């Protein structure tokens, strides 16, 4: 069997990209984003992308770099407030945007990866989100039908992984990564640490390797923080 382990982001992406494809990208804000894969996708110049991601990075980092290069045609997101270029492109009509409530987006991806084509949720009933969608009553309450979501490619970021593709995420960098890993026709994981087969605690693997087609250790992780917020150190004495 051909191994899943790849040398770097460029090798991992070889042969999977095409113009007009849909890519899911894990992360919440800049936390847990596959930054090496995003940079490598920019280098390939692939275009007319539909990108499914909770946010769209910031100016100059994360998915923001694919906006700058004009490679994204459409975003499916829940919140894009951190990105000035996004606003400009959207308001000038150069970029399409589909807003999904965050929980609906997460569940659409979970459902897509689990073979569930549609589901009903209370979220968005009576709002713009429900327009044009089936609304049905269950047990006296109204629910809107949302579709499962899959992608041609899912790019995810984990902290630790092995050659089987088993993944473990770290703290809130988990976010959308586990569901996206299940919903890509091809899933590529970039990790910080590759460990030998057998080194991961089998009871605590977050994404089983079946979902991961290719895996590599990122060349570098900048792991930028959007809003560094601290408290004064003198509090420590009284805490």
């Amino acid at each position, binding site marked *: 069997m051909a191994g899943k382990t790849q040398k770097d982001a460029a090798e991992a992406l070889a042969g999977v990209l095409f113009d007009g494809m849909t890519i899911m990208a894990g992360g*919440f*804000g*800049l*936390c*847990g984003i596959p930054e090496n894969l995003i940079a490598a996708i920019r280098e390939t110049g692939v275009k007319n992308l539909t990108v499914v991601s*909770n946010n769209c990075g910031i100016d100059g980092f994360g998915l923001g770099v694919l906006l700058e290069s004009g490679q994204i045609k459409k975003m499916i*997101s*829940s*919140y*894009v*407030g*951190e990105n000035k270029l996004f*606003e400009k492109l*959207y*308001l000038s009509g150069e970029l399409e*945007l589909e*807003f999904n*409530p*965050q*929980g*609906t*987006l*997460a*569940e659409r*991806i*979970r459902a897509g990866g689990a073979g569930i084509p549609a589901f009903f*949720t*209370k*979220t*968005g*009933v*009576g*709002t*713009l*989100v429900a327009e044009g969608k089936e609304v049905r009553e269950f047990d006296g309450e109204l629910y809107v039908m949302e579709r499962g979501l899959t992608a041609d490619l899912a790019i995810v970021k984990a*902290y630790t992984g092995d050659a089987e593709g088993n993944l473990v*995420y*770290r*703290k*809130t*960098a*988990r*976010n*959308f*990564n*586990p*569901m996206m890993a299940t919903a890509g026709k091809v899933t590529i994981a970039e990790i910080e640490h590759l460990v030998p087969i057998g080194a991961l605690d089998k009871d605590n693997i*977050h994404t089983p390797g079946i979902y991961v087609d290719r895996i590599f250790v990122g060349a570098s992780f900048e*792991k*930028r*923080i*959007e*809003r*560094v*917020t*601290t*408290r004064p*150190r003198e509090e*420590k004495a009284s805490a």
Partner: protein
Amino acid sequence: MAWTRDEMAARAASELRDGFYVNLGIGIPTLVANYIPAGMHVTLQSENGMLGMGPFPYEGEEDADLINAGKQTITELDSSSYFSSADSFAMIRGGHIALSILGGMQVSEKGDLANWMVPGKVVKGMGGAMDLVAGVKRVVVVMDHVEKSGAPKLLKACTLPLTGAGVVDLLITDLGVFEINRGKSPLKLTALAAGVTLDEIKAKTEAVFEVGL
């Protein structure tokens, strides 16, 4: 004298109960964490995938993998747990969170909330707000009573696109507190900020309300 941001947060904190799992929105709702009564056990949920949010870190101890829904660096507690966004919203949508405190642009007397979009202006997105108001057991909105222009924000009907219809239980503004009860009972003013008169709050409110001070 209207309430300050901190006084509004302190008033909102009086909605907390021992044992509650709570989600706090961005802005004034975040300040509510500073007013959790001593001895009360409240667990804060962050919708990006964490239960048991701790305080902001000390300088130099920030962790890029540990942020809240406002993208601020935070810390964990011994009791904390991490999970995916799908699990996080299963908690929210599934009615497992007792209380959500969030900001608002407009609230109607029927309990409708608008807080995510101003058409023709910058569109940022709803984030998790629509899921929170749809699934959390009790929804408290904290907002200024009027726009900067002086236009009322507590209305007969919202003019902005809704976040949810018939979802607000309680509204706390800088001028007072209103029981909305998701529109199931008439809108009722239950508290006035110190120094605010009934005439003043009536003049600054479009919605019709009962007075139950």
